[in-house]
């Protein structure tokens, strides 16, 4: 699992590449907790390279969503493949982290 960071129009973009499973999810958790600790409250997840999210993975994403919501910030994602979208819908995660088709759509929110 690789995580790349960039910034655009006031949003921190975290590009997630690989699989979020029991082994790799703690890396994502650590990263998100770190950036929130640094004061980031507007985060977009670039999921173009995200292959899969397991139950351990969506726990981290729920946690991130609620932490951001508590701070009155915003979180969204884009570039979600069919497999990951299915998991988002099954776990009702899409109601907490809105899914956009493209980065442009996400930025317009």
């Amino acid at each position: 699992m690789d995580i790349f960071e960039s910034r655009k129009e006031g949003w921190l973009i975290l590009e997630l590449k690989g699989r979020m499973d029991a082994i790799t999810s703690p890396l994502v958790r650590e990263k998100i907790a770190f950036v929130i600790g640094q004061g980031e409250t507007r985060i977009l997840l670039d999921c173009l390279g995200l292959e899969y999210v397991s139950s351990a993975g969506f726990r981290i994403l729920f946690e991130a969503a609620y932490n951001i919501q508590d701070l009155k910030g915003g979180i969204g994602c884009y570039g979600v493949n069919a497999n990951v979208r299915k998991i988002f819908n099954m776990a009702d995660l899409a109601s907490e982290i809105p899914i956009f088709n493209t980065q442009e759509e996400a930025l317009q929110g």
Partner: protein
Amino acid sequence: MARSKALLRSAAQEEHADPGRILKKANLELLDGNEMFMFITVFLGILNVRTGELTYGNAAHVSPILIDKEGRCELVELPPGKPLGIRKQGGYETQRRLLLPGDSLLVFTDGVTEAESGAKGFYGEERLLSLLRSLSPANGTAAAPLSPAPPAAGAARYVEAVLGGVKSFCAADPRSDDIAVVCVSYLGNEYKKKGIS
């Protein structure tokens, strides 16, 4: 896990066998004092053995697989539902479907489909479906749930096949997640007539 099971059992007694209501109640109980943000995913099904009606609800669990008596396999579509222990808001839907005699329902954790082999990647849904289809009567290795053999053998055979399939797929590679597999075969009235319970 032990607490979750106890809460689900207790909720089941109070909520009149309605999976959606049971999940909602158990969720509220689990949220109480859950500072560690621990959660569980649940597929909760209740089978009426007289009618074959399966009522079920889902809390972010992977879809179970329905295997009919001919060995055809189908992923059961589940209503969306958050894991238990995550948030107070939101409900859990109850759905229904009728099982026919000889149908088997295989429920499993994502540790099955996530099992990894360094050389071959992940076990995956397609490989699992393919394994189950290979046990169909058409392939001559049926679990034969309606044969005179003890009917529970059909369900046990599916479970053994899945565990064996995953083990052999992973070979020496360590697995990343725990694995649980449960299979229930619906017998209908055929076995009652024959005096088999």
